[in-house]
């Protein structure tokens, strides 16, 4: 089964008040985890997003789509990055727990819907 593990918040929320040592060790931790997941063949995709302050939101207003600056949700609730892993739910939760233990911010684990199966030929 595939799960998406989502991380939220922007740079401001996660890094602004941290010490240089914390930032460095956080980076090392993420790099190590990423390497382990790739090594184990568990990761399907992983991407970080730029800071939510750089987002544009397109809303339907007065019958037309209108783009505005900024993210859809509060910055701290805005998607910051994700892994897609192909593992059991327990394992996905375990991975998320490792990260949460370090960054102390919540993460969301959600199953990805199955691809429609190819039609029989």
């Amino acid at each position: 089964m595939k799960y998406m593990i989502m991380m939220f918040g922007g740079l401001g929320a996660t890094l602004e008040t941290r010490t240089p040592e914390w930032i460095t060790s956080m980076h090392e931790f993420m790099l190590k985890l990423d390497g382990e997941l790739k090594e184990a063949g568990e990761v399907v995709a992983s991407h970080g997003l730029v800071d939510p302050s750089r987002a544009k939101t397109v809303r339907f207003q007065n019958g037309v789509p209108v783009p505005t600056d900024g993210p859809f949700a509060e910055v701290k609730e805005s998607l910051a990055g994700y892994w897609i892993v192909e593992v059991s739910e327990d394992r996905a939760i375990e991975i998320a727990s490792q990260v949460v233990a370090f960054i102390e911010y919540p993460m969301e684990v959600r199953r990805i819907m199955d691809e429609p199966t190819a039609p029989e030929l």
Partner: protein
Amino acid sequence: MNAEHRIEDLLRELAPQVLGTLVRRHGQFAACEDAVQEALLAAALQWPTEGVPDRPRSWLLTVASRSLVDEWRSESARRRREETMAALEPAADQEDANHGPADQDDTLALLFLCCHPALSPPSQLALTLRAVGGLTTTEIAAAFLVPEATMAQRISRAKQRIRSAGARFELPPKPAERLGVVLHVLYLIFNEGYTASSGPTLHRVDLTAEAIRLARLLHRLRPREGEVAGLLALMLLTDARRAARTDAAGSIVPLAEQRRELWDAAGIAEGVALVTRTLGTVPVGPYQLQAAIAAVHDEAPTAEETDWPQILALYEVLGQVAPGPLVTLSQAVALAMVHGPKAGLALLGTLDADERMAHTHRLESVRAHLLERAGDTVAARESYLRAARMTASVPEQRYLALRAARLHHLAAPADPAC
């Protein structure tokens, strides 16, 4: 270098020549390009075990021609096929004989075709890497971190676009203008590899190496074009610092803090020689000037010994030849080194309203450094954080966040990573 690498290098050198010959004979760039890819694949499978044929170029041309004919046959273009068959067979045999100027023009015409102005830059990059660089779609997709299916589609659409734009396989009527586009595409390929505009790693070595290889090829074809030499020199002089540009943890090391003994002396020597030979003999252009600036940096034994007045003078010329916000930005850095951070900050101020700077973190990043040098730590920290929020590069973001954190925690012990 092992046998497999030698074969790979040979194949990629021959790829544009074979494709050029096919397109010159038959037109139909898209079909010929597919055929050459098939021939390259066949060679990559057969040559390592069966040995490289005596005339590898003829071999590729024959296999590609055959595959082209098969394609036409399956498209049931009967009449056309018969005509083409007649034209194909004898020609494939005499190919090694005319390995001369026609070939070179073919490769150049291919470059012009792949960098056709009707294509978007990502398509120009992809098509150039495939048709001229001889890379497979899989390799190009990996280099740009996109799914293979996406890259395959991008390349196929690019080929359709070339056809519908009525582009022809020939040297364009205004080659100088189009050469500018080709140089820009090579520059983008290099930059994509060097700074990795997105993604976790700072260097994607394959793309820088490929850009340098293609620039060398172009320089061989057009040795008297100053800007071609300038671009090649710029790439060599920039790439020479690669080993020093990141530390063991993959973090960015700014130029002033780099361990210069890690710089590649051979690359610097080649770049300096190239730019010295070119400057003054031809009309000066932006790539030559940037190469000259890179050469001044690379020739300084230590950061302190950098000849900043000369760099500032070169930026002033560059600002006249090719004015733009990024030139002003670099000029501000040089100005700060010669006349102090306040002078640099004042010049940066002229960029605040510039729309073209709205999407890059570089203005804020430079401002942060100059503010820090001017002793305004509070404003510097804010600038670093703003820059960190704007960048799309993970290593850049970490570097900027670290600089900000260091100013915030000045009382804390020195950070071992910096």
